[in-house]
């Protein structure tokens, strides 16, 4: 079911009248909670049991179709290791959405996720949409973080919240779609300096003229 939906989302919507919006999304969270796996599942539908630890950051894009708009996610999957912590502000700066990931089998990662949320609220753009993802829900037997606890925390801070599993693909697409839904799609609606950008012809030269 999930793959079907993701397949539908990937299909480019050729209708000229549909809006195309581009959003910058950043993934944050403790090391080895499954950020990269989550993204890989969302973008490629794959899952690697032994996912390599991310160095610096990874960049992926994925397009999803909503009722009348096409949303293109520019996903910045940051490295969770502490030594890369200082790079994170660079990536969440100007992001319209963030997914803070924790591992439900590890209480510490939840604490770390709370810190990330705090940091985003303080430093990131004020209109940023934050989602909290309790990953590895397939390992519910080893659960250390209660669903209710996390839900309560999310409600308190106005976060989207889902428990996900990159391994079983549970809720992976849902959480991205929920974010896409929550993001302001109107041209003027993009609150803050870094609102959603209309993807148009002007975007093309920009991508070719970059320093790559």
């Amino acid at each position, binding site marked *: 079911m999930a793959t079907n939906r993701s397949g539908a989302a990937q299909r480019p919507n050729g209708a000229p009248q549909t809006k195309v919006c581009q959003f910058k999304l950043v993934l944050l969270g403790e090391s080895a909670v499954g950020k990269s796996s989550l993204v890989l599942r969302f973008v490629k539908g794959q899952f690697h049991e032994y996912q390599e630890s991310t160095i610096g950051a990874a960049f992926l894009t994925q397009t999803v179709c909503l009722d009348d708009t096409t949303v293109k996610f520019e996903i910045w999957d940051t490295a969770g290791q502490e030594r890369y912590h200082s790079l994170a502000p660079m990536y969440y700066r100007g992001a319209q959405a963030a997914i803070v990931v924790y591992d439900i089998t590890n209480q510490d990662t939840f604490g770390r996720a709370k810190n990330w949320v705090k940091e985003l609220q303080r*430093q990131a753009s004020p209109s940023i949409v934050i989602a909290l993802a309790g990953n590895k829900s397939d390992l519910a037997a080893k659960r250390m973080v209660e669903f209710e606890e996390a839900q309560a925390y999310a409600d308190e801070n106005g976060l989207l919240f889902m428990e996900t599993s990159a391994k079983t693909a549970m809720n992976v697409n849902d959480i991205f779609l929920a974010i896409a839904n929550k993001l302001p799609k109107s041209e003027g609606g993009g609150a803050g300096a870094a609102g959603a950008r209309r993807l148009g012809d002007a975007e093309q030269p920009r991508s070719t003229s970059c320093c790559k």
Partner: protein
Amino acid sequence: MATANDDEILEGFLCPICKADLKSASQLTSHFESLHSEEQDVLRSLKEIFGKAKKIILNNDDSDLKETFDRALKFSYQEHRWLDEEQVIGVSRSSTDYLKAVRSARLERYATETNKLLIRLDKLVCNMPAEPNQRKQHEQEVVPWLDGSSVKLCPNCAKAFNLTRRKHHCRLCGSILCHDCSTFLDINVARAIVDPSAPRTSQPDHEITEKNGLRLCEHCFNLIELRKQVQESRNAKTVLVTAYEQMRSLMDQARPDVAMYEKMCQSLFDGETTYNLTDVNKMRGRIGKLAEGIDLLSKQIAAFPAEPGTRQARLQTAIRHAAAHYIKEDLISLRKLPTEAQIEEVRQQRYERAEKQIQMERERMERQRQRKEEIAGPSASRVDTRQDDEDSPLLEQMNIIREYIKEARRDMKYEEVAILEANLKELKKEYHLQKLSNKS
């Protein structure tokens, strides 16, 4: 492009704006700061985070070493632009107190260590027996030697001790070392260090060996050497002091010269023939030269660089003023010399006076003789007992003294000239009296 992005997963130190892989976190940070700093307001809030990040990453990240040359070339332009911007000094904090605390602790440690060594050195060098065995015993009484039975290697150079490389002991700390690692301190030098008032011996030319020196380890030797240097620098005279001492010695030379000059002048005015005008002129020239020297030195002292307003600056100007005053009052304002004509006149007067006196004396004697003749009647005709001038010992003596005077004059020893002249005068007088008595 977009499809490529969809397929590929970029990973690494990606720039969030242009997605270039910067290879290392520090490069990424600097690239981001320099190239994408247009959004200043956001940047400012992040800047300190970047600064902190840079520090952490520079210390921790090994991948920094992977900086490639072409990458450096590529971004040198942006980095230059970044450097061109004038940087404002941010928040600063004085670390002087911390420095002082660290320094004083360290100095304290050195001072106690050095003092301990000096006390030992004092005990060692005072009444040190000359006989080798007694000396060894004396040394071990002052500083207990380390037991070397378990020491297999020289602690300094880590070479093994054997038959040829013997164990030795530092005489100040008692530690073990090999011959190559030991340094020798000359005993005379050691005495001078312990007792700075003792006369300084010049550096010995001969090589210092175990016999005339103390075997020390490098550490002790350095501490002692440091103390020696401190002592020497304390005793060393500064340029200023040397110049001042030179000036004082010139002044001391000038004082008797000035007194002599006054005396010579007076004698000329009195019409005496003891000194002639050229002598006095020469003397004047000498005083002038001394004055010049004093002037030059005092100027040097005044020109010595010193912070204006400090005591040193005040002292320097005071020295200069005192020297100038001394030259003006004592050396330049010498009595003017009489002219040749004046001297001649004075001499003439004196000569006439003397002639007159001699005339009167003769007349008196003549009268006395006539009276005697009247009483005794005409006596036998007088025998001319006049001796040949050349034979007279008095004349000979006078010639010798004249030679002496000439010599003394040449050497500008005017005190001697005066004495000799007086002597000569006495001889002349004696000679005249002798002649007169011969005649009578």
